[in-house]
C-alpha cells in the first residue's frame, strides 16, 4: 500500500496546471485518509514540481496550521477546506497522516518528510508558520467558498404499506473536477444516508474527526407516512426530515476530509446504491452511542496528560456545558412552537366568533367594523402559523442539529482519551516486559531471554506508534474542534439573523393589517 497512488486534493477551479492525479485512487479508501487536504495556488505550483520529480506529493498537502508542541516535525500550516486562503505563507507539508494501522505508513511518511524539509521554498514558510498560534488560527479569515452545492428535494413516497419508503432527490452542483459532471442528481432513501454516516464513522471517527450526525430515526413519523395518513403532521414530518437530511449532507461536503472520501462521492454520484444493511437496527444515533459507550470509561479519567491537555479539558467542559444550555434552549423553543400553534388555532376560532358577533350586531357601522376585525384576526392566524414554522424550521432544528453535533464532538474527545489510554497501557506493558527481562537476566535463562527481548522490541515499537497516534489524533481533534467552532459560529449567526428577519417581516405585515383596520374602527358611530 505504500506505493499506492496519493490522495490528491482537488485543485482550485481555474488552476491551470491540473494535477494528473486528480482521480482519487479508491484503494486508499480503507487507509487512513489524509485530512489535511487543502489547496492554494502556491501549493499547487510547488507540488507540480514535485510530481514532475516523480516524488509522492501524496498526503503532504496540508495547509492546516496548528502549533503543536508535540512533535517539531509536525508543523502544518493553516488552511481550510478545499480552497485556498490567499495567503502565501500558509503551506508546509503535512506530516501527519491519519492512518493508524501499520508502521509502514509511518515509515512512508518519514522519508518524504525529510525530503520535503530540504525543499528550499518551504523553509521560510516553516519558520514563519511555526510560531503562529491557535488564536491567530481562530482569527484568520475563513473563506468557505465552496464550489459545491448539494440539495435534497422532491420527497416521493415509493411503494405501499409497511414496505413503503420515501425517496429523496439528492442534487449536486459543483465545479470540483473529482466529480464526473458539473450537475447531477440521484435518488436516495433515508437508510442510504444512515449507511453513509456509518461508513464515514467507521473510517474517520477513530481519527478524531467530527462526523456530522444524520437526523434521528422515527418509527412513529415513518409509520404515519407508510400507512398513508395524508395529513399535515405527516407532511410536516417529511419536510422536517428532508430539510434535516439536506443540512446533514451540506455539513458532510463542507468538511474538507470527508469530502475526499470516495463513499461520499459515491453517495452523491452513483445511480444505484447498494442497500445499506443493518441500518434498520442501527440508526446514526445508535452507532454514535455504541462508540461513546466504549469510551465512556475513558472519559471519566481526569488525569491531565500534559500542559497542552488543559486546552482539551477546558474545551470538553465548554462543550458539555454548552450542550446543556442548548438542550434547555431547544426545549423552550419547542414550547414556543407549541404555544404559537395553539395561538394560531385559538385566533382562527376567535375570528369566526367575531364574525358571528358582527353579524348579530344591528348597528351597521359597528357590524362592519366587527367583521373587519374578524378578517384581521384571520390574517393574524396565517401570520402565527408562518411564525411557528419559522420558530421550528429555523431555530428549533438548528438547536437540534447542534445538540447532535456536540455529541459527536464529545465522542471525538473521547476517542483521543481512548488513544491516550492505549498508549499508557502499552507503556506499562513495556515496563512489565522490561522487568521480566531483568529478572530473566538475573536468573540466567538465555532461551527465555531471547523471547523477552523480542517482546520488548515489539512493545517498544507499539509504544512509539501509539504515542504518535496520540499526537496525531490530538492534532486532528484540535483542528477539527476549531473548524467546528468556526462553522458553528457562522451557522448560528446566519440562522438567527434569518430568524430575526422572519420576525421582522411578521411585524411589518402586522402593521399593515392594523393600519387598514384603524379607519374602519374610527368609522363606527
Amino acid at each position, binding site marked *: 500500500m505504500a506505493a499506492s497512488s496519493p490522495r490528491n486534493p482537488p485543485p482550485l477551479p481555474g488552476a491551470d496546471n491540473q494535477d494528473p492525479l486528480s482521480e482519487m485512487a479508491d484503494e486508499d479508501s480503507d487507509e487512513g485518509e489524509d485530512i489535511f487536504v487543502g489547496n492554494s495556488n502556491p501549493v499547487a505550483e510547488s507540488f507540480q514540481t514535485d510530481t514532475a520529480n516523480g516524488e509522492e506529493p501524496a498526503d503532504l498537502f496540508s495547509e492546516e496550521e496548528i502549533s503543536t508542541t508535540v512533535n517539531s516535525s509536525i508543523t502544518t500550516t493553516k488552511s481550510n477546506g478545499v480552497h485556498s486562503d490567499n495567503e502565501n505563507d500558509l503551506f508546509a507539508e503535512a506530516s501527519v497522516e491519519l492512518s493508524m494501522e501499520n508502521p509502514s505508513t509511518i515509515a512512508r511518511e518519514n522519508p518524504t518528510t525529510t525530503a520535503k524539509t530540504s525543499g528550499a521554498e518551504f523553509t521560510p514558510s516553516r519558520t514563519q508558520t511555526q510560531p503562529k498560534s491557535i488564536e491567530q488560527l481562530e482569527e484568520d479569515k475563513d473563506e468557505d467558498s465552496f464550489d459545491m452545492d448539494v440539495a435534497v428535494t422532491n420527497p416521493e413516497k415509493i411503494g405501499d404499506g409497511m414496505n413503503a419508503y420515501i425517496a429523496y432527490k439528492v442534487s449536486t452542483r459543483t465545479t470540483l473536477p473529482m466529480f464526473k459532471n458539473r450537475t447531477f442528481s440521484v435518488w436516495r432513501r433515508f437508510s442510504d444516508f444512515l449507511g453513509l454516516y456509518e461508513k464515514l464513522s467507521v473510517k474517520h471517527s477513530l481519527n478524531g474527526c467530527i462526523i456530522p450526525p444524520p437526523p434521528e430515526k422515527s418509527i412513529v413519523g415513518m409509520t404515519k407516512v407508510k400507512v398513508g395518513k395524508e395529513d399535515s403532521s405527516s407532511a410536516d414530518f417529511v419536510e422536517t426530515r428532508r430539510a434535516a437530511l439536506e443540512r446533514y449532507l451540506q455539513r458532510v461536503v463542507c468538511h474538507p476530509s470527508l469530502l475526499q472520501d470516495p463513499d461520499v462521492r459515491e453517495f452523491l454520484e452513483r445511480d444505484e446504491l447498494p442497500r445499506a444493511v443493518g441500518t434498520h437496527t442501527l440508526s446514526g444515533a445508535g452507532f454514535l452511542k455504541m462508540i461513546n459507550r466504549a469510551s465512556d470509561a475513558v472519559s471519566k479519567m481526569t488525569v491531565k496528560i500534559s500542559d497542552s491537555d488543559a486546552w482539551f479539558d477546558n474545551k470538553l467542559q465548554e462543550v458539555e456545558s*454548552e450542550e446543556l444550555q442548548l438542550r434547555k*434552549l431547544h426545549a423552550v423553543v419547542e414550547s414556543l412552537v407549541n404555544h404559537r400553534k395553539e395561538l394560531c388555532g385559538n385566533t382562527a376560532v376567535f375570528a369566526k366568533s367575531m364574525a358571528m358577533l358582527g353579524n*348579530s350586531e344591528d348597528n351597521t357601522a359597528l357590524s362592519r367594523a*366587527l367583521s373587519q376585525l374578524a378578517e384581521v384576526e384571520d390574517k393574524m392566524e396565517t401570520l402565527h402559523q408562518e411564525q411557528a414554522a419559522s420558530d421550528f424550521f429555523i431555530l428549533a432544528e438548528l438547536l437540534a442539529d447542534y445538540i447532535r453535533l456536540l455529541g459527536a464532538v464529545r465522542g471525538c474527545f473521547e476517542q483521543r482519551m481512548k488513544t491516550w489510554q492505549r498508549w499508557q497501557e502499552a507503556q506499562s506493558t513495556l515496563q512489565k516486559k522490561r522487568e521480566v527481562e531483568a529478572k530473566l537476566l538475573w536468573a540466567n535463562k538465555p532461551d527465555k531471554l531471547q523471547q523477552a527481548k523480542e517482546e520488548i522490541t515489539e512493545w517498544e515499537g507499539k509504544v512509539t506508534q501509539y504515542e504518535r497516534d496520540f499526537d496525531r489524533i490530538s492534532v486532528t481533534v484540535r483542528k477539527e474542534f476549531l473548524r467546528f*467552532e468556526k462553522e458553528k459560529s457562522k451557522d448560528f*449567526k446566519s440562522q*438567527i439573523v434569518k430568524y430575526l428577519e422572519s420576525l*421582522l417581516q411578521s411585524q*411589518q405585515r402586522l402593521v399593515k393589517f392594523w393600519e387598514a383596520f384603524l379607519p374602519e374602527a374610527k368609522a363606527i358611530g
Partner: protein
Amino acid sequence: VRSCVEPQIEEDYQAVNVDLQTDATLQVDISDALSERDKVKFTVHTKSTLPNFKQNEFSVVRQHEEFIWLHDSFVENEEYAGYIIPPAPPRPDFDASREKLQKLGEGEGSMTKEEFTKMKQELEAEYLAIFKKTVAMHEVFLCRVAAHPVLRKDMNFHVFLEYNQDLSVRGKNKREKMEDFFKNVVKSADGVLVAGVKDVDDFFEHEKTFLLEYHNRVKDASSKSDRMIRSHKSAADDINRIASTLYTLGTQDSTDVCKFFLKVSELFEKTRKIEARVAADEDLKLADLLKYYLRESQAAKDLLYRRGRALVDYENANKALDKARAKNKDVLQAETSQQVCCQKFEKISESAKQELIDFKTRRVAAFRKNLVELAELELKHAKGNLQLLQSCVGVLKGDT
C-alpha cells in the same frame, strides 16, 4: 397590595359606559384598595352636593359582598323592574395568580437566580394587573349607578356610600345559595316560557330576538378571546425563557458568537416585554369589553324578561277579569288586579324602551372607543417591535 387605581384602567372602564362623571351632584370613585389574604377592601369615595348626605365629601370601606348586596337589592326592587340594572362586578379572583406564585416558589431551586427574580417580577406584575382590574370593575358599577337618574336616588345606595360601619352583609349561607340556585332554575324555565310569548310590539319583539342571539355570540367571543390571549401570554413567557437561556449561553465566554448571543438575548428581552403588553392590551380592550357586554346584555335580557313576565301577568289578569265579568263574581277584585298589572306593564315598557335604546348607544360608543384604542395600541407595539428588530438585525449583520 395597595393600589391607587391606575387612571388608564379607570378611564377604560368608565368609557365602557359613556356619560359618567359629568354630574357634579354625585361623583363616586374608589380611591384606594387593599388586598388582604382572601379579601379586598375598597375605599369608596363620594363627592356630592345632594342635601341628603351629611357631608359633601366622605369615604367608607366596602368589600365585594356589600357590592353584591347592593346589586341584589336593586334586582329585587319591583320599582326598578323597568331598568337595566348595572351588572354586578365579578368576584375578585386571585387564585390563579396565587397558584402561580406558589409554583414559582416551589420551583425556585431549579432555576438560576436571575430567572427566578424575573419570573417573580412577572407574576407580581400580573397580580397587580388583576388587582387593578377588579378595582376598576367595582368602580364602574358604582359609577353606572350614580349616573342613572333613578337608581342614584336609591336609599340603599346612599347607605352604601355613607354608612361608615360594616353593613353586616354576610355572604349568603349554604341554604340561601341553594335558594338562589333554585330561583335561577325557575327563572330560566319561566324565562323560556315568557320568551315564547310573541310580543305585539315590534320594537320589543325585535329586541328579544336580537338580545338572545347577541348575548350568546358575545359569550362565545368572550371565551374565545380569553383563550387566544392566554396562548399569546404563554408565547411571550417562552420568549422570556429563551432570552434567559441565550443570556446564559452568551456569558459563558467572550467569543464572537457569545457576544452575538448576548445581543440577541437583549433583543428578545425587549420584544418579549412588547409582546406581553400586546397581550395585556388585547385583554383590556377586547376581552374585558366583551366580558362587560356579556354581563350587560344579560342585564338587558333580564329587563326583557321582567317586562315579558309583566305582560303575561297583564294578559292573565285580563283573562281573569273577563272570566269574573262573565261569572259576575269578584269583579272588583279582578278589575283592581288588572289595573295594577296594566300599570306595572306600561311603566316597565316605557322605561324599558328608553333603557334599551341607551344600551345600544352605550354599546356602540364603547366598542368604538375600545376598537380604535386597540388598533392604535397594536400598531404602536408592532412598530416598536419592528424598530427593535430592524436595528438589531442591522447591528448583527454589520458585525458579521
